[in-house]
């Protein structure tokens, strides 16, 4: 075939622009995915630095390194950066962009130029957040929740940060629109809905939440700006407004956003587990539908963030009940993943290690979430470090480890280079242990009554804070090892040309490594489900090639 010349790797493909411009103006979904990867890594590093500094400040009671005002901007920046710039866009924008079209047998997303615009908005929004640090007035000190009235009264650059979040929301919406349309319109012939890989299902559910929920926070954040600039009375109690209504509107988006964050990670885990258990996934339809169920129920439980805010009893009743129900689809997923290991043939490659750690950490995060669904218990633990621990177990132990799993699973495919596996394992153990040492003590001190967002604390909590801070050092060591290993692998790692390095059955493993510019020489015809391991009669693995 003549394809040897025309179908070059997307990394070497020369479009209209060369060099750097060939990347930042490229509409190729794979290049956009890589650009998201680079940008998100930078923002993640910034978020980690702020987190590290917060933990350092909390090493001793009283002032350790910074003033209270600086500390307050730290946790705001840490939250804004991690949530809007890393956890929300992380998996969909990086791996979704790169692999969604490939997984459904398409050459690109439905709207490639919109996709590029979305990346630009993301980078501009991120730059605005970082810029707000340098401007007079200083970065916002409201917490990432921007609760009114404080966010209207503080003298810091709230407008800047809020506007950045608005732009980032727009970027997220465009990605969502793109993915829904892509999945509806560009599936390869024969790829029915139930032949789609589960990562695609989770992206589909995520994309819907992005489209429907994001505009609500868009308008809410815009109203903070309107209120600050024009003094229009909308939420300010001095003008008759209701600060609790702001919280309602904020969480109508921000709770579903939690599922924007976790669903794709669940999708990644659903991809990785069958590959390394070398058998088909258990309960495909249940996992697929539970993604939709999470998206639907997840949109109905927002007010459980406000159980202490003074809602009506009926409101508390309804939201508490719905909150408990949303736990069920997540439980179904966990059970199905576990069952997928049964009678498998498990190889504990690095991606698998991260995926299994995901199940463990996410289970802790989910189960502690269930505790907060119970009204009487929530009243005691809400706004304490128990909550901080809970959502870090979900967002970092869940989504973060999902990202790490995806990196170790797909990076060799994306760049055609294999990382050092020994280093990957040692990074894994540092991350896993460091994570638990960092966040588990927060459950205990939260139950004992340590409120969150505290610059200073009473002496009886010192020991827990110190264990936690030490944990942050272990965790960061793990992050440094992992990112160094992955980065070095791109330059010096062993070259990988085998198409199917892990023995996966989904479409990305049927094409060149790294993928060609057009992904597929011909659009494939799909005849079977995504995880049909060929009876597992012969060993299809090319393991020796990899190691």
């Amino acid at each position, binding site marked *: 075939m003549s394809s040897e010349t025309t179908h070059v790797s997307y990394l070497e493909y020369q479009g209209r622009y060369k060099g750097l411009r060939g990347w930042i103006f490229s509409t190729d979904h794979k290049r956009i995915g890589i650009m998201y990867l680079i940008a998100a890594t930078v923002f993640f590093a910034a978020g980690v630095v702020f987190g590290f500094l917060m933990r350092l400040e909390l090493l001793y009671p009283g002032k350790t390194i910074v003033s209270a005002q600086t500390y307050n901007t730290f946790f705001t920046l840490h939250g804004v950066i991690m949530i809007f710039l890393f956890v929300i866009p992380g998996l969909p924008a990086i791996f979704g962009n790169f692999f969604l079209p490939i997984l459904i047998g398409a050459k690109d997303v439905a709207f490639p130029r919109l996709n590029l615009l979305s990346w630009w908005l993301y980078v501009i929004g991120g730059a605005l957040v970082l810029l707000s640090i340098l401007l007079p007035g200083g970065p916002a000190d409201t917490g990432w929740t921007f609760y009114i009235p404080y966010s209207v009264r503080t003298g810091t650059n709230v407008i800047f940060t809020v506007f950045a979040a608005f732009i980032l929301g727009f970027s997220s919406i465009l990605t969502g629109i793109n993915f829904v349309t892509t999945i509806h319109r560009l599936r390869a012939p024969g790829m029915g809905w139930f032949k789609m890989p589960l990562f695609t299902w989770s992206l589909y559910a995520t994309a819907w939440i992005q489209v429907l929920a994001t505009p609500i926070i868009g308008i809410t954040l815009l109203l903070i700006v309107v209120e600050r600039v024009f003094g229009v009375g909308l939420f300010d109690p001095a003008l008759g407004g209701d600060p609790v209504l702001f919280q*309602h509107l904020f969480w109508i988006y921000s709770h579903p956003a939690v599922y924007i964050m976790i669903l794709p990670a669940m999708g990644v885990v659903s991809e990785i587990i069958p590959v390394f258990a070398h058998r088909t996934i258990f309960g495909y339809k249940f996992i697929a539908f539970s993604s939709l169920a999470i998206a639907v129920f997840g*949109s109905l439980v927002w*007010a459980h963030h406000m159980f202490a805010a003074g809602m*009506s009893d*009926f409101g508390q009743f*309804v939201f508490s009940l719905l909150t408990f129900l949303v736990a069920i689809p997540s439980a179904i997923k966990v059970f199905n993943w576990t069952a997928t290991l049964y009678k498998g043939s498990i190889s504990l490659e690095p991606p698998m290690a991260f995926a299994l750690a995901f199940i463990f950490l996410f289970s802790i995060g989910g189960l502690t979430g269930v505790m907060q669904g119970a009204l009487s218990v929530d009243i005691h633990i809400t706004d304490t470090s128990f909550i901080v621990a809970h959502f870090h177990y979900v967002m970092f132990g869940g989504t973060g480890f999902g990202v790490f799993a995806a990196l170790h699973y797909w990076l060799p495919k994306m760049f055609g280079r294999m990382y050092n596996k020994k280093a990957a394992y040692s990074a894994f153990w540092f991350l896993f242990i460091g994570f638990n040492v960092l966040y588990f003590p927060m459950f205990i001190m939260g139950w004992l009554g340590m409120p969150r967002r505290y610059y200073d604390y009473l002496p009886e909590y010192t020991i827990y804070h110190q264990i936690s801070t030490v944990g942050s050092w272990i965790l960061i060591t793990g992050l440094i090892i992992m990112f160094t290993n992955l980065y070095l692998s791109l330059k010096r790692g062993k070259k990988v040309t085998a198409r199917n390095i892990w023995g996966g059955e989904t479409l990305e493993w049927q094409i060149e490594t790294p993928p060609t510019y057009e992904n597929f020489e011909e659009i494939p015809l799909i005849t079977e489900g995504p995880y049909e391991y060929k009876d597992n009669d012969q060993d299809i693995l090319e393991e020796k090639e990899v190691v």
Partner: protein
Amino acid sequence: MESSELIHRPQYGKYILVWIALLMLTVITVTVAGINFGVLTLATALTVASVKSYLVLTVFMHLKTEQTAFRIFVGVALFFIIISFVLLFADYSFM
């Protein structure tokens, strides 16, 4: 492009009929607003508005001739708005 064929039918006449209906509904809603039905005033106003948007959606925006998926989409979006509204009032109407 399965459904494009259907949309390909230009329909000036139908559009004008819908436009007349929309104007008449506007007149009705303004007239009715003058009469005090109590709680029903708001309900009638919103019902008329819903009928008007239904006409715009189905005829001007061709929802009727689009693929089923589009109608499901609209349903999902409306469901999301309505359920959020209901839940919001699960709090506020029991204060």
